[in-house]
């Protein structure tokens, strides 16, 4: 409800008088602060900025490959999941025979999967595994520590990439 003055019929916004003291105190505090931060810029910096920015922007214009495009995420996650599952399955089938990453032609497996020639998906592979083996997969995925992941994100990504997406 608006504040009304009986004689003049003027109105003030609702809550105006209740909030007045707070706003006045804020204003007084602001008055005690310096007007500017005190920063300066080199002479002619702003004048030369237009041309230098245009040069840099056009020079750097190339094909941007977004790290977070749906397709890339899909292929990356699918490839990683399939590789982990296949390695674990091989290990299990071979009765504990050690197969290291170096023994497997990773590029061949990756291109085989990404080209859709495997004909199997994660669920097909999971169907051959028991609960213990699936739990072991969880442990494999935990080999990437949170710290390593954080390092990677800070060094290689920024929030702007996500914002633009």
């Amino acid at each position: 409800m608006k504040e009304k003055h009986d004689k003049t019929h003027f109105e003030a916004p609702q809550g105006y008088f209740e909030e007045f003291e707070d706003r006045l105190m804020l204003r007084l505090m602001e008055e005690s602060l310096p007007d500017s931060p005190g920063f300066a810029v080199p002479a002619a910096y702003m004048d030369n900025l237009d041309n230098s920015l245009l040069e840099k922007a056009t020079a750097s214009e190339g094909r941007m490959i977004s790290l977070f495009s749906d397709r890339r995420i899909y292929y990356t996650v699918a490839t990683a999941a399939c590789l982990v599952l296949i390695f674990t399955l091989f290990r299990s089938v071979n009765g504990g025979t050690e197969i290291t990453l170096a023994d497997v032609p990773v590029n061949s497996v990756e291109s085989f999967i990404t080209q859709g020639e495997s004909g199997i998906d994660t669920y097909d592979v999971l169907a051959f595994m028991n609960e213990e083996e699936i739990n072991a997969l969880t442990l494999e995925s935990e080999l990437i520590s949170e710290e390593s992941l954080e390092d990677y994100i800070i060094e290689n990504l920024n929030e702007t990439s996500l914002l633009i997406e």
Partner: protein
Amino acid sequence: MVEEQELIEDLKSAGKEAAFSLLVSTYKQRLYWHIRNMVLNHDDADDVLQNTFIKVFKNIDKFKGDSKIYTWMYRIATNEAITFMKKRAKRQGITLEDVKDSAVENLKSDVYFEGGQIELSLQKAIATLPHKQQLVFNMKYFEDHTYEQLSEILDTSVGGLKSSYHIAVKKITAFLKDNETI
């Protein structure tokens, strides 16, 4: 609004360089001071400003027009400045707060800092605030944004922003009084 729409269309067209020049000349100062208030040093502000405009230039096709273009650019500038400081913190093995404290200390010998003791103390006081309050204070006090503009840029309610700003001003004046600057 019509002008902005035209500008965006020009920016998405084949000969977008002219429109980009117009965009730069319109917003360079505002974005520069926004970034400078965050990173404090001129060279760092220049780096971040360039990164911001390059991102805008490269990604203008992805701008859907759901917000005003200056809102979008302010968000990019803010994120670029934060990312810049986070990378520096990571490289030096220190916290984001340490990066800010160090930037404030460096102002004493900065040739592009013309402030006196009170301006220096003000920067020290701002550095003690939580990050969001720093942003709100700088954008409201130094950059003269309205709460409505801030609400769009920071995606926060006007009520929340008013409260943040009020608390920030209180903390800053208390800091300055404690340090006998005012």
